[in-house]
């Protein structure tokens, strides 16, 4: 066979094979779907005082802080020298707000696992690891006097909550 005819013939055969392969087998490439949550150790940015105040407000009251409320909180914050002290007063005041969206004790105890997932997700923007979930569940299960308010307060005044 003349080489002039052989090479185009091979090329044609390969083309036909590759086309038939495309038709016969369909591969779909995609990344496996996973929920992404930020690990605590990846939080490197300290919230400014302004961010801390406004985020605590939003997290507790489930609404964006208004300018009026932000201004009054900043005014109080600026008027006291010990910033940790005044931030604590502001947080405690939010906890006492009738609009604070904190689950009741009954709701928490009816599904402790879900409560733990929710509070880590809401305030730490991540899932708890197994040890964290076990520890908190153990605390709640073994202490009937531990209230959701107390747990929210501990989270809001923790070091991790100061970071994002």
């Amino acid at each position, binding site marked *: 066979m003349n080489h002039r005819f052989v090479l185009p013939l091979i090329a044609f055969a390969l083309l036909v094979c590759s086309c038939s392969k495309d038709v016969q087998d369909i591969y779909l490439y995609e990344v496996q779907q996973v929920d992404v949550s930020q690990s605590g150790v990846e939080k490197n940015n300290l919230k400014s005082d302004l961010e801390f105040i406004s985020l605590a407000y939003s997290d507790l009251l489930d609404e964006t802080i208004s300018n009026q409320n932000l201004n009054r909180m900043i005014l109080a914050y600026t008027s006291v020298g*010990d910033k940790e*002290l005044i931030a604590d007063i502001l947080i*405690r005041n939010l906890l006492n707000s009738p609009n604070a969206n904190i689950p009741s004790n009954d709701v928490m105890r009816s599904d402790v696992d879900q409560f733990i997932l929710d509070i880590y997700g809401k305030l730490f923007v991540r899932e708890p690891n197994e040890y964290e979930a076990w520890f908190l569940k153990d605390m709640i299960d073994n202490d009937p006097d531990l209230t959701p308010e107390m747990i929210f307060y*501990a989270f809001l005044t923790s070091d991790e909550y100061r970071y994002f």
Partner: protein
Amino acid sequence: MKRRHFLKSSSLATAGMFSIPYILPSGRLFAQTMNRKVNHVVFCLFAGGVRNMESVHQDLGNLMPAMLEGSPSSLDGLVSVPPPVWNKPLAEEGTLFKEFRYAEGPTGHYNGHTVALTGTYTNTGLNLRANPEAPTIFEYYLKHNSPAVTARNAWWVSNALGPYPALNYSSHASYGPMYGANHIAPTSLFSGTTFPAISNPKQFQFHEEEKIGALRSFLNRNFDKEALASGIGNFNTDEDAAAIQGFIAGIFQKAQTGAYNTPLDLPQNQATNDVLTILFAEEVIQTFTPELLVVNMTDVDICHQNFTGYCNSLQLSDYAVGHLWQTIQNTPGMADDTIMIIVPEHGRNREVNTIQDVYGRYGLDHTGDDSSREIFSIILGPDGIVNKNIVVGTPTSPVGESIDLVPTVANILGFDGDIPSSLLAGRVLEEAFV
């Protein structure tokens, strides 16, 4: 939280100094023998810019009867202020430095306050919202006083916000926020604006706080960074912080019962910022009996555009200072054991500006002429400690400068010997003491 743990550890270390040799923060091996004149100092910055012509020279008659002896002013437009509450002019309870000087640097409010609180002249720009570079009297006190004390004993009560909150500690590398005073700006803090934000904090029982603390410790152990409030601020122990939170809550409770409707026994229409600032300084005094409290007033600065208003503010601020002294003398623990220092931060220009008030009087600025550097000071206190009814200084031979106030306070409280000599250029105002 962790910083408070640090403070607890520091307190334990301090407690141990009575039984073992202890190297003081200043580098001394043993604490210097205490040689206090009294155990409390109230430093009243009669500030906002007060000219000697209207104060101690009494060119318009005596506008400050609580502090000074003299014939009453008959200036048209003056409001009626109740007579002084103390039984004699405060100058007679101590030494009047009639010709005191703010000798160097810009005659701005920030500079004047900074010099008075650091004992160091500064050329830093006007109204800068930054901590001063030189250590403040609060830091000297909290670092060098022996035995060690906490910030509960050191208060800075400011008439306003702006640059003033930054004066409770410096940016000096050897001092800083760890030695800062508790600052409050009461007219901002205890206001209708802040009421919804801070007046009703959730209170937990002690056993609940313990459980919260245990959970918080667990959460913090699982996080690799320590979070101080990013604005830093001064430090308090847990115990002191709880006391201060209780103090703030108590003020709101008292306000709701109408306890402050006639502040310092004045009618509502005379409840100026200065009057209210002194009122809450008195609350601090009665609650904490601090060893060092600095309070300022600034209402007289209305003089830029209203000279008659300036004179009225002088009257009210003078009345308030007299009330402050009476409260000190009625407070167990501070009565007969307190020295009060009164001083403006700077004066005002000799020449008027172009702004007239409704009485046709022109305003006064403070831009650095000789008159804006001429001020006075009164140092008053207990018999046998302070020279009484003495006047020192003449216009041609002034006595005392603003930079002398910090060394004087340190000397009164007995820690001046521990301050590195390179940090302070002023002297102790010995003329005031027996």
